[in-house]
C-alpha cells in the first residue's frame, strides 16, 4: 500500500515535470549588453510563459517595445522562469544582470522582497518590477510598475450592479492577498455606489501563502456555481487561470461573468463562453512594460519611482467587446470621470 503510494508519487513527479512550464525561452546565451544594444531580461512569475494572463501580457509588451525599437525579438530578449517553488528567484535576477541584460524586468510581486537588494548590487543595470511599489526601497535603478486595480474593479462593480436583475452578485479571488484585496474592495465599492444594499458574495480559492488558487479551474467553477445557485447573476473573477472555471459555471447556469487582466471575451475558448463574458477589467501590463522599455532606451527613466497605470492613463480600463454593456456606457463613463477627477475615492482594502 505504502509502496504503491510512493510509486504513484514518483510517477506524479515525473508527470508534473512534463506538464509544467513549457516555456520557449529565446535569446542568446552569450554576454549581451554591448554599447547601445537593447538586451532585455525578463524573469517570470511562477507559471511562466503561456499562462494566457499576466506573464503573457508582460512579454507581449516587451516584444512590442523591442520590435518598435528595431531590435530582434529572438536575440535581444532573454526570458527566465523560476523553479516550481520559486526558491531560485534571486538567481534569475542576478544572472540576468551578470550576463549584461539591461533592463531586467521582474514580473510579479513575488520578486518584491529580493529585488531591492539585487538592484543595489548592480547599480549599472536598470530593474523594473510589476505590481510592487518601490518608492520606499530607496534604490535609484529600480522602477515599480503599479496599477490602480481598485479603480477598474470599481467600474466592474458599477457594471455588475447596473446589470444585475437579482440584486445579488459575486466575486471570486485567486489567493487571499493584499493585491487581490484591491480588486475586491473596488468591486464592492462600485456595486454599492450604484445599488446600495446589494449582496456581494466573496470567495477566495486559496489562503495567503498558497498560490494554487490562480491555477485551480475546478475550484473556481465550484465557487462560482455556489454563488449562482445562491441567486447571484454576475460573478467577477480575479483568479488568473481559475477564471476558466468561473466562465464554465456561468455557461452552465445561464448567467454572466466578468473577466480580468486581458479582454477575456477575445481569448474565450468557446462561443458559449463569449456569450457570458459581459466585460473584462483590463490591466494593461503590456502597455506599462512597453512604455517602460521605451523610456529606458530614450534615457527618460527616473528610477527609484513608481509608474502608476490607472483609469486616467488608460492602463486600467473596462472592455466593451461583445457590446453587452453598451447600454450602460454613459453610467460607466460618468463614474470613470468622477474617479479621474478625484471626486470618488476608491478603497484599496476590503
Amino acid at each position: 500500500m505504502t509502496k504503491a503510494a510512493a510509486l504513484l508519487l514518483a510517477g506524479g513527479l515525473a508527470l508534473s515535470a512534463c506538464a509544467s512550464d513549457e516555456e520557449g525561452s529565446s535569446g542568446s546565451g552569450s554576454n549581451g549588453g554591448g554599447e547601445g544594444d537593447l538586451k532585455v531580461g525578463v524573469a517570470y512569475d511562477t507559471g511562466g510563459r503561456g499562462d494566457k494572463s499576466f506573464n503573457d501580457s508582460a512579454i507581449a509588451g516587451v516584444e512590442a517595445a523591442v520590435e518598435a525599437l528595431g531590435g530582434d525579438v529572438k536575440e535581444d530578449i532573454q526570458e527566465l522562469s523560476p523553479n516550481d517553488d520559486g526558491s531560485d528567484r534571486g538567481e534569475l535576477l542576478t544572472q540576468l544582470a551578470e550576463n549584461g541584460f539591461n533592463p531586467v524586468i521582474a514580473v510579479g510581486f513575488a520578486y518584491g522582497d529580493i529585488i531591492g537588494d539585487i538592484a543595489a548590487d548592480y547599480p549599472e543595470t536598470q530593474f523594473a518590477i510589476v505590481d510592487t511599489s518601490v518608492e520606499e526601497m530607496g534604490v535609484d535603478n529600480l522602477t515599480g510598475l503599479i496599477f490602480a486595480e481598485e479603480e477598474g474593479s470599481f467600474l466592474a462593480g458599477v457594471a455588475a450592479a447596473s446589470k444585475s436583475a437579482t440584486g445579488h452578485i459575486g466575486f471570486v479571488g485567486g489567493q487571499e492577498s493584499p493585491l487581490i484585496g484591491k480588486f475586491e474592495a473596488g468591486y464592492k465599492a462600485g456595486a454599492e455606489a450604484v445599488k446600495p444594499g446589494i449582496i456581494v458574495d466573496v470567495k477566495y480559492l486559496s489562503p495567503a501563502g498558497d498560490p494554487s488558487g490562480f491555477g485551480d479551474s475546478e475550484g473556481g467553477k465550484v465557487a462560482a456555481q455556489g454563488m449562482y445557485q445562491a441567486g447571484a447573476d454576475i460573478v467577477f473573477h480575479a483568479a488568473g487561470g481559475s477564471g476558466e472555471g468561473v466562465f464554465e459555471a456561468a455557461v452552465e447556469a445561464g448567467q454572466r461573468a466578468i473577466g480580468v487582466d486581458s479582454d477575456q471575451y477575445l481569448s474565450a475558448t468557446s462561443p458559449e463562453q463569449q456569450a457570458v463574458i459581459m466585460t473584462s477589467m483590463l490591466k494593461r501590463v503590456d502597455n506599462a512594460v512597453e512604455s517602460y522599455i521605451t523610456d529606458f532606451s530614450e534615457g527618460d527613466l527616473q528610477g527609484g519611482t513608481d509608474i502608476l497605470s490607472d483609469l486616467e492613463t488608460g492602463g486600467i480600463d473596462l472592455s466593451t467587446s461583445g457590446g453587452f454593456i453598451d447600454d450602460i456606457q454613459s453610467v460607466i463613463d460618468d463614474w470613470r470621470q468622477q474617479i479621474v477627477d478625484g471626486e470618488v475615492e476608491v478603497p484599496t482594502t476590503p
Partner: protein
Amino acid sequence: MTALRRIGTSLAAPALAVVVALVITTLVILAIGQNPMTALQVLLDFGDTPAQQTQAIVVILNRAVPLFLAGLAVSVAFRMGLFNIGVEGQYRMATVVAAGVGAAVVLPAPLHILLIMVVAMAVGAIWAGIVAVLKVTRGVSEVISSIMLNFIALGTASWLLTGPLRGSEEGAAIITTTDIPESGRFPALNGLFDAIGLAQPRGQLFGFLIVAVVVGIVISVLLKRTRFGFDLRATGLSPSAATASGIDARAMVVKTMLISGAVAGLIGLPDLLGRTYHFGTEFTAGLGFLGIAVALLGRNSPLGIAFAALLFAFLDRAAVPLQFADIPASVVTIIQGTIVLSVVIANEIARQVSRRRAEHGTGQASAPAPDDGATGTGPAGTRIDARQEAGA
C-alpha cells in the same frame, strides 16, 4: 566476497537508475529539437571565473541543506514503515511559529538561535505527533491523516501569518512576519572559502549546513548503534514479530513520528535564519514533498540521502543556465522524476536478482538471508538496507 557483492548490488541499483534517467532525458531533449550535449555541458559548467564557480557550489549546497533535512525527516518514518507525507505541513507550521518566536524575543546570539531551533523542532514534533496519536489510538492510517494535516497546516500557517504574527505593513504585496533580529541569525560559512583558498562567492553559504551534518550523524547513530534504532528497524520489518519479541509497537510509532516531525521542523530554518529572516507568503514551499523523493533516492540511509540531496541540488542549479541555452528548465524536473522512478524500479530488480542468486547459489550460509520476496510494508529499499544491516 559477500561484502563486495553486497556493495556491488547496492551501488548498481542507483547507478543503473541514473543511466536510465539520462537516456530518457536525452530522448526528451531530442524530441523538443535541442541538443542533449548542450544540456550536459550546461549541467557541468559552473562558470568562467573562480567566483562564479564557488557561487555555483554555494547555490548547490544551500539548496541541498533543506532537501537533506527533508529527506532525513521522511526516512526516519520510512525506516519503520510509516509513510510521513505530512513533512510539508510540519515544516510549514514549525517555520511560521519559529519565525514568530524568533522575532519576539531578544537573547544572546547562541541562545537565540538555539531557542528558535528548539521551538521549530517542538512544533514539528507536535504536528507529527497528532498523526501518531491518531494512528495508535484510533487506527487512522498515517498516510491519510498526514495529508489532511497538510491542508490544516497550510490554513493555520496562513492565519498565523496574516493575523497574530503579521509584521509587514498593511497593503504590502508580500505578507511577512517581523524580521528576526541580528542575534537570531545564523552566521554564514563564507570564511570556509578563504580557509581553503577558494574565491569568495557573491552569495552566502548557509551556516545551517553544520547543523544539517550534525543532525545527519545523530540520526545515523541513533538508527544503527542504539537499542532504539534496532527496535525501530525491527518494527519496520515485521510489526508482529517485533511485538512478539517485546517491542511496544505503539510507543515506537509515537516516538518515531516525534523524531521525524522534529527533524521536519528544521527544514525551513536554513532559509529563515540564513537568508530571509522572516516567514512570508513567498516562503519556499514544497520541500516536504521533495523530501519523499530524496529519501527514496537515498534509500533511507543518511549518507545516501546526503548524496541524493546533493544530486537534486546539482540538477536544480542548472535550471537557470539551461534557460540561457534555450533549453526549458523543466528538463531538470524530468531528470529528477525519472531518476526517482528508476531507483524504485531498480531496487526492485536488484532485490529479485539477489533472491534468485540465493535460491540457486551455494555457500550462502554466511550471507544474510535474502528477502522472502513478499512485498514489505516499507518502501523499496527499506527492507534490503535494514536486512543487510541486521545481518551484518
